[in-house]
């Protein structure tokens, strides 16, 4: 696989940073070949993964940054989301029971279920004190 250069945006892991982080990726998808439905999929993946970092990676007394890298090459979007917060892989969490009744349904855990369905590949690594999520989404056939 050919490596393409990635652009990176590093911002404080706070809710106020989310819109800029979304725009950083979505502006790279403004091309005719990318259908609207796919842009929404990418938005969903970004929201679910970035919200996790913003709300849970760092304790309130020790805030930190979120680093988002992005490239579009060969019809494929690559995303890398990294933080220096506590070690946490969203992929290790067991999926909620999707067949449970309204009364028994747990309200958590649906975000990562959606992400896994929307991406072509997702991988978690703990590297040098950083959580690193690598995501691949095919945007052209």
């Amino acid at each position, binding site marked *: 696989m050919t490596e393409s250069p990635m652009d990176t945006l590093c911002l404080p892991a706070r809710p106020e940073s989310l819109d800029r982080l979304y725009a950083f990726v979505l502006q790279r998808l403004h091309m005719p070949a990318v259908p609207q439905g796919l842009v929404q999929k990418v*938005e969903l993946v970004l*929201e679910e993964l970035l*919200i996790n970092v913003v709300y849970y990676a760092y304790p309130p007394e020790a805030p930190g940054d979120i680093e988002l890298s992005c490239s579009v090459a060969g019809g494929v979007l690559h995303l890398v989301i990294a933080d220096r917060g506590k070690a946490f892989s969203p992929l290790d969490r067991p999926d909620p029971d999707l*067949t*449970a009744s309204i009364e028994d*349904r747990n*309200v958590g855990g*649906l975000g990562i279920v*959606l992400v896994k369905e929307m991406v072509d590949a997702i991988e978690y690594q703990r590297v040098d004190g950083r959580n690193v999520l690598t995501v691949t989404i095919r945007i052209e056939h």
Partner: protein
Amino acid sequence: MDLIIETAKRGTAVVLTVTGRMDAATAPEFMKVCDGLIDGGDISLIADLGKLEYISSAGLRSILATAKKLKAIQGQIKFCNLSGMVKDVFNISGFTSMFSIYPTLDEAASH
């Protein structure tokens, strides 16, 4: 666009016409509107999602929380007019089989 929720009486039910996006920032508004209706004694709700363009897990959580409240008091929330990514998200999360979902508002209102 953010989230716009219009409400209208239809028989004994209240129809919520939901327009825009239900994401982490806007989903609490949906729950607030539903809580207001429930507090006012309306326990039969129909959410028309035909103009909803985007929903994330935060939106699903606010829907589920509302459905749990209604279930506990023998109420119900039904859905109609799902399309595009909203339909996909309902399917993936199992919401399509958990809730009563109708192709049109008329069908939702007559069941």
